[in-house]
């Protein structure tokens, strides 16, 4: 079976950002995403908007270039004021074309 190396970008952010981040990643080239609600603590402690429900964790499978662009966008737009974490992993998929 032919497999291909692509990237998985994971973003964990306070839930008010959900719609904005989804818009961002779609615009930057992601073809899909998967989302769950999570709880957590970070450097900002039990984060500020925990009263409003949990954080969301958004995962998206993308090409290397798109992964870089998403990370850049998160850093520029949200890292300063919001409770947010973003990281990238290498994953192997079958249908490369589905994600690029």
């Amino acid at each position, binding site marked *: 079976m032919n497999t291909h190396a692509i990237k998985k970008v994971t973003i964990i952010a*306070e839930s*008010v950002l959900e719609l904005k981040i989804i818009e961002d990643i779609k615009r930057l080239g992601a073809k899909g995403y998967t989302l769950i*609600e999570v709880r957590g603590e970070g450097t900002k402690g039990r984060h*500020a908007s925990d*009263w*409003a429900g949990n954080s969301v964790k958004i995962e998206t499978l993308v090409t290397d270039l798109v992964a870089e662009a998403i990370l850049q966008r998160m850093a520029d737009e949200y890292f300063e*004021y*919001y409770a947010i974490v973003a990281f990238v992993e290498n994953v192997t998929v079958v249908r490369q074309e589905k994600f690029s």
Partner: protein
Amino acid sequence: MESLEVLRSNLLSPIVLAFALGMIATFIKSDLRFPEGLYTGLSMYLLFSIGLKGGVELSDTPLREFWLPALSTIALGLITPAIAYAAARKIGRLDVPNSAALAAHYGSVSAVTFIAATMLMQRLQTPYEGFMPTLVALLEIPAILVALLIASRAMKRRTLGAAMREVLAGRTILLLLGGLVIGLFSGREGVAPVAPLFFDLFRGALTLFLLEMGMITARRLIEVRSVGPFIFGFAILAPVLFGAMGVACGLLSGLSPGGAAVLGAMAASASYIAAPAAVRIALPEANPSLYLTATLGITFPFNLSVGIPLYLWLANQLAGFTV
């Protein structure tokens, strides 16, 4: 009834005791935790139910009794955030975003404080106007908009659009107004079949909700030390001032003392559903610890315990003058 007796009756009601139980649960680090979604579900239920109730009552209210209280509620929604902003800037020496954030929260209204006020009236058999839930919606919207407007002017930025959408299409307003319109169109008779769920269970549901609110408040209280004396004073004095203004506006626009006290509680309360979400999007620079500790940690328990009885006492005193 004696004022102290009113206070005692308020403090020993199931809802206030459930709130205290929630606080205790957090302080003793209990593993009590509401299942994911129960908090959201309960708050949706409460908002829709007060809307529905308000709609049914409004369907029986002649417009002539309604327009003056409506206007003065909107006026409160315009004036109180301006006062809050000025106080935060001038007295508290806070920066623009934090001041605007406080203004948005204290201008708007806490649905739970509103309900708690109406429940005290019912327990004391003090009548109040049935259309009060309508006023909740009228007070909620302008306050947040005014606060964000001030901020966007002062910061020369244009993020108002998204935040306004956030408020108007937000679930608080949607459920409140939606319930109201459904109640208005269906009328008392049409709503009767759904009354067992939306009306009879209402106060029990509020009790559960306050159990969870108690846990949230306790988590905020732990941070009280970090917010400084201005916030602490503000979180007590702003509700008292706005509560008095609400009572006065209510009486002047012809509300009964009970209705005026409820309007006072509304003005005195600080939003914690619509405002925080809008503020977080529009004013990310504002520190959530500051405004959430103030509204949830201090103002909410203050109003719930002594504030509401105080506004009622005030309404009864002032009603003597106006009549």
